């Protein structure tokens, strides 16, 4: 059920990116999709009643067994860290294209930015 809500967030983003005609709104839609995917990845690695994948001194002293049976999955967290930075990079590039386009055309409305046919 939580997965489904997460997918709903994804679809809202997709809807925004596909149907809106304001450039910034399109960017926002893409950002929402990225949040949803990141959240989905982290959820995949969650363990009920788990602990963060960081080993403390007490864990080491009492043997790693307790930690191993409770830790959540560190791999999706590493992937999401990468994905967050990638999305920040593409956000920066996208916003600079938007700003520059606004400077040229004086509007964010993509129906008025139509020099190219097709």
């Amino acid at each position, binding site marked *: 059920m939580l997965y489904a809500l997460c997918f709903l967030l994804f679809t809202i983003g997709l809807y925004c990116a596909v149907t809106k005609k304001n450039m910034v709104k399109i960017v926002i839609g893409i950002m929402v999709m990225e949040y949803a995917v990141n959240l989905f990845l982290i959820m995949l690695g969650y363990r009920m009643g788990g602990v963060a994948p960081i080993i403390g001194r007490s864990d080491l002293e009492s043997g790693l067994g307790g930690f191993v049976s409770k830790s959540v999955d560190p791999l999706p967290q590493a992937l999401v860290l990468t994905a967050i930075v990638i999305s920040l990079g593409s956000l920066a590039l996208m916003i600079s*294209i938007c700003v*520059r386009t606004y400077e040229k055309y004086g509007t964010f409305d993509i129906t008025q930015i139509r020099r190219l046919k*097709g």
Partner: protein
Amino acid sequence: MSVPLPVFVAIPLVTAFLLPVFAKRGKAVATVLANLATISLLVLAIGSIGQSRVYEVGRWSIPLGINLVLDGLSSLLLLAISVVSSAAMFFSIRYMEQYTARAKYLSLFLLMVAGMNGVVLSGDIFNLFVFLEIASLASYALVGFGCGHEELEASFKYMVLGSIGSIFILFAVALVYGNTGSLNMAYISEAIQSNGLNPGLTFALGLFIVGFGLKAALVPFHAWLPDAHPSAPAPISAMLSGILIKTLGVYALARVVFNIFGISLATGWLLLTFGIVGMLVGAFMAFGQWDLKRLLAYSSISQVGYVMLGIGLGGLIIAKDGNLAWASLAILGGLFHLLNHAVYKSLLFLTSGSIQMSTGTRQLREMGGLAEKLPVTRAACTVASAAIAGIPPFSGFWSKLILVIASVQAGYYWVAAIIVFVSLCTLIMYLKVQRYVFLGELPENLQEITENRGSMLVAMVSLACLCVLMGLLLTPGLRASIFAPAVKVLVDGVSYSANVIGM
């Protein structure tokens, strides 16, 4: 000579990191460094033909770490990338004099090359996504490099569709991880073979097809290509049309469909349909264009259709348990066409850049009679047009012939008919280019123009020579070392995992 595989990524990446330091002074140094990087990649790519290796990054055995896989298909793509990128890089020495920010241009160019090499070599599905993002982001920025109205509009459109494609791919990666618990392609493939496809994995496959289809501009997803490719500077158009859509789209799709999920009847038909629809739509749309580069861009859609047709037909025959010899022939046709198209389409875009730099226009109606003024460009353009239209001694003829033979042998006569028909359309299209650009009356305002000199000529002439000689790649010795391993990778399908884990 066997170099460690990460060198293919490290050389362009480190050079790209180094170049912006030369921003103010030393533009010449930056240019020389960038050219050295692409040429050394070319040498390494030629040296790696026929090898197959696995490299474990950080000495972590899979699945702990990431592995890089060099097999026949990867080395074919590496060769194509390095040939096109060194020609385009050499061409841009003179061509990019029209633009500012030279060092940043070179840096972005090399980042794009690094991204493509990373995609081709990667054996890990998430790593493939990361490098795909590098190449895509660099190409979004390069499409908008001119900062004019059209460039920015095309760049935004490309970036939105490309980002949606990337997110679909990431979502598919997440689903695959959730269902198999692994990110390594070989392990995923193994898990799918032992547990079978469940609805989650099928949905992930669908997302992969849409995502890579957006990158490859397969027909329902092609809306960005006719805007983005003409708007970029000519060497970048050559890179985008020549190699980027094939690496990020066709290669990645073929790898995922054939080697990870395993080809099935439905995916075989789907790829074949993508190919045929792309061929027809691209050819018809190209007829009506009066903008030279836009015509070339639509023609790219049609030519990528040929590649998809070859691969899809081969997959279909494999899925139907047909004769494997025919399947390999169809895939050979597709891959040979991929290599051919990389060479002649980039040559055509380079000649269009040369024409645009001389005349200052891209509109076919405003040109004419340039044959005397631009003799070398004309010769190169004629060679490339003959090759793309499939006139016998040139390379395009052989790949189309192989595709026709394969489809006739496998009993798909209608496919063969479509191939011949689209080939005729292509011929007419390029006759139109020849007629309006090089023949006819020379307009008043173009009396003074002269042929471009220097690096642009060298790049065009060397690609034209390659274009003439490409037919030789089908001689048995070269074919066995270049194409046979690549075809074998796709025909073997999911035994990829056993090969990689065993290597």
